[in-house]
């Protein structure tokens, strides 16, 4: 009884909200709304500003810009087919490698394979990878990855050269070193987000699977992974987005040569590298073309993200999992 009196006496617990409460509530709501809309506004402003500067180039080069592979500032001939190809090829390769290892690592670190302390230690190490600046990755690629890959690549070229993937020798920078470094760069993102997704799977689900008599691997592959698939897919899309836009490390490793080839060992080029390397000293006409290229990169990234989200919804629906 005494306690009840205490409660009813303090109007913090019950009682009508004061004017200040209303005011705080309303302003907080306005601020959150503003922030949400601001993000949309920033995206639109970005698209609009870059698009506006690209308009002269779009008018001059039309869609031929997307299907030509020549970039010659002296003759005012610009085309980015090779860059689009290189961007997608290197990012997809990086995603396949980085995605595989990232998801495997997430399973390893969340499914009680390791004592908790050791798992926490590994987690920190993987997350540390995300803190390394991309120039350092680039240098590491030049001085470590390329020399290690070179003999392997040239052996593959000698013995299996008839396969288009191995049709050239690796002299130095090239697609494979860039893709490998990209894979390592996107690994922390994929591993961290996938871990969260796996940890969100209710313990009961796992217990139920064990209860039905599954082995550990069956439980992981048939129950846990599908249940967490939406989150893992999100991790992959995030990682792919990062790979598409990565600039410095790729510019140092890919060879920046306008080649369109399936060979993993040939130099190639990416949109981000093209932009970073040509902007500082570009003339007026070239800047317009670069803006056009930037717009294309932006659209590719948006498209990939939208496709990813759509696919995510579809797969999770097919698997009967509710997405948030």
């Amino acid at each position, binding site marked *: 009884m005494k306690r009840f009196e205490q409660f009813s006496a303090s109007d913090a617990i019950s009682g009508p909200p004061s004017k200040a409460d209303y005011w705080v509530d309303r302003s907080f709501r306005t601020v959150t709304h503003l922030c949400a809309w601001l993000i949309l506004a920033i995206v639109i402003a970005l698209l609009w500003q870059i698009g506006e500067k690209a308009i002269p180039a779009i008018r001059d080069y039309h869609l031929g810009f997307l299907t030509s592979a020549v970039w010659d*500032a002296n003759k005012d001939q610009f085309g980015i087919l090779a860059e689009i190809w290189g961007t997608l090829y290197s990012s997809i390769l990086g995603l396949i490698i980085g995605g595989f290892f990232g998801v495997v690592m997430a399973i390893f670190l969340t499914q009680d394979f390791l004592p908790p302390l050791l798992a926490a230690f590994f987690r920190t190490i993987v997350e540390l990878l995300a803190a390394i600046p991309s120039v350092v990755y680039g*240098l590491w690629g030049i001085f470590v990855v390329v020399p290690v890959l070179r003999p392997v690549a040239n052996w593959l070229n000698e013995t299996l050269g008839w396969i288009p993937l191995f049709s050239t020798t690796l002299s130095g920078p090239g697609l494979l070193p860039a893709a490998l470094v990209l894979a390592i760069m996107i690994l922390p993102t994929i591993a961290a987000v996938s871990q969260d997704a796996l940890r969100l799977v209710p313990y009961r689900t796992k217990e139920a699977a064990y209860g039905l008599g599954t082995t550990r691997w069956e439980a992981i592959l048939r129950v846990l992974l599908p249940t967490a698939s939406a989150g893992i897919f999100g991790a992959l899309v995030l990682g792919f987005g990062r790979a598409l836009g990565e600039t410095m490390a790729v510019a140092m490793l890919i060879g920046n040569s306008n080649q369109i080839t399936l060979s993993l060992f040939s130099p190639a080029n990416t949109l981000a590298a093209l932009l970073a390397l040509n902007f500082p000293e570009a003339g007026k006409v070239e800047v317009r073309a670069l803006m056009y290229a930037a717009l294309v990169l932006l659209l590719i990234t948006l498209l990939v993200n939208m496709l990813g989200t759509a696919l995510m919804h579809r797969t999770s629906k097919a698997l009967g999992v509710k997405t948030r």
Partner: protein
Amino acid sequence: MKRISPAQIGAIFFLAFSGINLSLAAETVRLIGSGASFPFPLYSAWFKNYSRTHKNVNIDYQAKGSGAGIQDFINRTVDFAASDAAMKPEEMARVPGGVQVLPMTAGEIVLAYNLPGNPKELKLPREVYPEIFLGKITKWNDPKLQSANPQIKLPDLPIAVVRRADSSGTTFVFTSHLSAISPAFKNGPGAGMTVNWPSSDKFVAAPKNDGVAATVKQTPGAIGYIEYAYAIGAKLNMASLQNKAGQFVPPGPEGGIATLANTQLPEDLIAWIFDPEGEKSYPITTFTWMLFYKQNGDPKKAETLRDVVEYCLTEGQKMSPKLGYIPLPQNVVEANRAAAKNIQ
């Protein structure tokens, strides 16, 4: 991700120190410059030494690249600029009051290579090295290369050509030289800050002088064009090139001095040496320029600029050889000194 160049770090330090100096000396003159990265190691040494002896002067130079330097200069956001490609008349016309262009130093562009066994003194004949950069000679043991180098057993290795990925004054000078000695190059890629190199999986591009140096160092069978100072820094082997007189000349101060001695400086002080005469001339030698306003609108600033130029022409030239640049011949120094009076 934005890469912070040593120049920018240098600029940050400069700013930090200038803040300290401001509080000490009331009448500090602050000069801001930007432009070519090719002479940056030398310029930064000059300005550091000058500021050491002249406590009330701070000079802040940012190696943004020649094109960016010219842009800054036209927009009047700097007090002076530097450019490997001098300045075009139409660009000068956009600066009210006029521009004084001064050749401050000269450098060489070298062909650095990386071959197994580290053979020194590779000789490249005049008709051969343009073909390498045209993608026509693709193997190190090509008969044309082997016959010019009987003392070296050249390997059966593909030639990996390393070029600049970014637009640069170095590329401009190098491709201008190749265009001057090879009609095929002139009609193919041509000369420019960036050119359309042959499409080949053996042509790779790296950003900046140091990027090309690192790639050549890491790639067996590579050859690339870089500024002499950077090749020295990376301890790369450099090829001797055959000059117009038919002699093979190794890169270094001697060949550069000979080239400059054979060069006549015109009235506007802009001389291009794309194919020098002379037995001892190193073929790819180039001046690099600083750009000044003829009317600064600030007598104190103009006086300081003239003093800095005088310092660079006297004390500064003594530092050049050690850093891989070529000291200016006396006639060029005199011409500069006379022209520097136009900076008002």
